[in-house]
């Protein structure tokens, strides 16, 4: 019984709901950026019905093949729904609609031959964020709940699984061997294919590339421990993985922005509203001071105050 309870509270810790409210704002705004910069091709792709190869999810739900009116409708739904949900307005309805529309939109983007894997955490986030429901006072909420804790935990697990599962896939694709991927010429292959980044300068050093493969493979395989880290150790892990993404961006010109942004599910976002309030109050104080005719602080006044 006690084990069950501890498992339940690991999957559903009690956390401040304001964390979810802030994360909603960030992620729904990110969706709007995403459909313009990352998965930006569904509308042009929908002009090529002859190249469409529906994914399992599209066949399962019998989704109609993409057409230009359909993709433009999805685009408009995502824009309107994204803005509403970012403002924490109608979180269940707007959030649910955005989750379905974005999943479909992204699935269309992946139905013309190439499937990307940087959207796992974001898609999961969009499906779980609405389940927290209405958060009174939004960013300034003082309520805590397991509902919020579960949503955040799901996003955290998805972020970490993006790394861990990619390591599993590397073991699988190498014929269930631990060494085949790290010892392969994969980075060389990737750099030759994407000669835009700094990676070209590494082409003459295949041994260094192997070392980098071993390093990233080990990091991915052991990423699961991050789910049990707290405080400084968690911060260090987050900084490490952000560095990892900056590095792959520099070397290969590959970004994992949708995964990177979901790292915010680990952050104490509930501190944002009080922090903003303090900044505002300080600004007001300063403005108020000036209007009361004190252009500079008067030292003696402070001493009197301090003395009681």
């Amino acid at each position: 019984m006690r084990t069950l309870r501890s498992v339940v509270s690991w999957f559903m810790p009690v956390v401040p709901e304001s964390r979810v409210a802030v994360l909603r704002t960030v992620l729904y705004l990110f969706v709007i950026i995403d459909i313009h910069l990352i998965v930006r091709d569904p509308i042009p792709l929908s002009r090529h019905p002859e190249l469409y190869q529906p994914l399992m999810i599209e066949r399962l739900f019998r989704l109609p093949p993409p057409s230009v009116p359909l993709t433009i409708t999805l685009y408009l739904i995502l824009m309107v729904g994204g803005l509403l949900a970012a403002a924490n307005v109608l979180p269940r309805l707007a959030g649910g609609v955005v989750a379905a529309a974005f999943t479909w939109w992204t699935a269309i983007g992946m139905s013309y031959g190439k499937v990307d894997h940087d959207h796992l955490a974001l898609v999961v986030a969009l499906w779980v964020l609405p389940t927290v429901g209405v958060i009174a006072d939004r960013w300034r909420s003082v309520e805590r709940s397991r509902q919020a804790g579960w949503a955040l935990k799901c996003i955290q697990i998805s972020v970490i699984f993006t790394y861990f599962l990619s390591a599993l896939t590397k073991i699988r694709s190498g014929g269930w061997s631990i060494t085949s991927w790290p010892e392969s010429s994969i980075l060389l292959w990737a750099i030759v294919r994407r000669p835009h980044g700094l990676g070209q300068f590494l082409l003459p050093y295949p041994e260094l590339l192997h070392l980098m493969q071993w390093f990233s493979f080990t990091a991915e395989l052991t990423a699961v421990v991050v789910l049990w880290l707290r405080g400084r150790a968690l911060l260090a892990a987050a900084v490490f993985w952000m560095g990892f993404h900056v590095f792959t961006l520099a070397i290969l010109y590959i970004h994992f922005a949708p995964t990177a942004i979901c790292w915010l599910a680990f952050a104490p976002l509930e501190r944002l509203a009080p922090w903003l309030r303090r900044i505002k109050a300080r600004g007001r104080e300063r403005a108020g001071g000036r209007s009361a005719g004190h252009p500079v602080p008067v030292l003696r006044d402070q001493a009197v105050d301090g003395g009681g």
Partner: protein
Amino acid sequence: MEQRVRSISVASLAWRIAATVLGIGLLLNGSLLMSDDAWPFGPLSQYAFSPSRNSTIVITRVEGLLADGRRVNLPLRVETAGISRAEIEARIPQITANPSLLRSVADGWMSRHTAEPALLRVWLVQDQTRLVDGRVGPIRLVELAAWELPS
């Protein structure tokens, strides 16, 4: 500041646990057994394969012959051709069997480059880079398919 804790019903707890178990199960199943077709529960297979130290690296491109005699590269990006390189690469067998599928690239390029002379012919080509014992070796250009645009 005092913080209240919202209550949660047993049913709420139960469906969340069920969803978590199902989700993790689908993800593991996808990574260990399924293909990309199972997105978003498919394997995270980008850059996950293991090219050998003597493999050939191919870059697929489309080239076009313009009415003024120039042979130009039609960059395979959504902005320039309406379709990306990966999408064309995934269709190579279909395109070599039926080169008229290159129409999508030709149309996409022409509609975005109206000031350029008309396209007469397009080729699907590959730059093939051979690795020799883990190092970059010679590069060669291979033509996979050609298609005359209907005049």
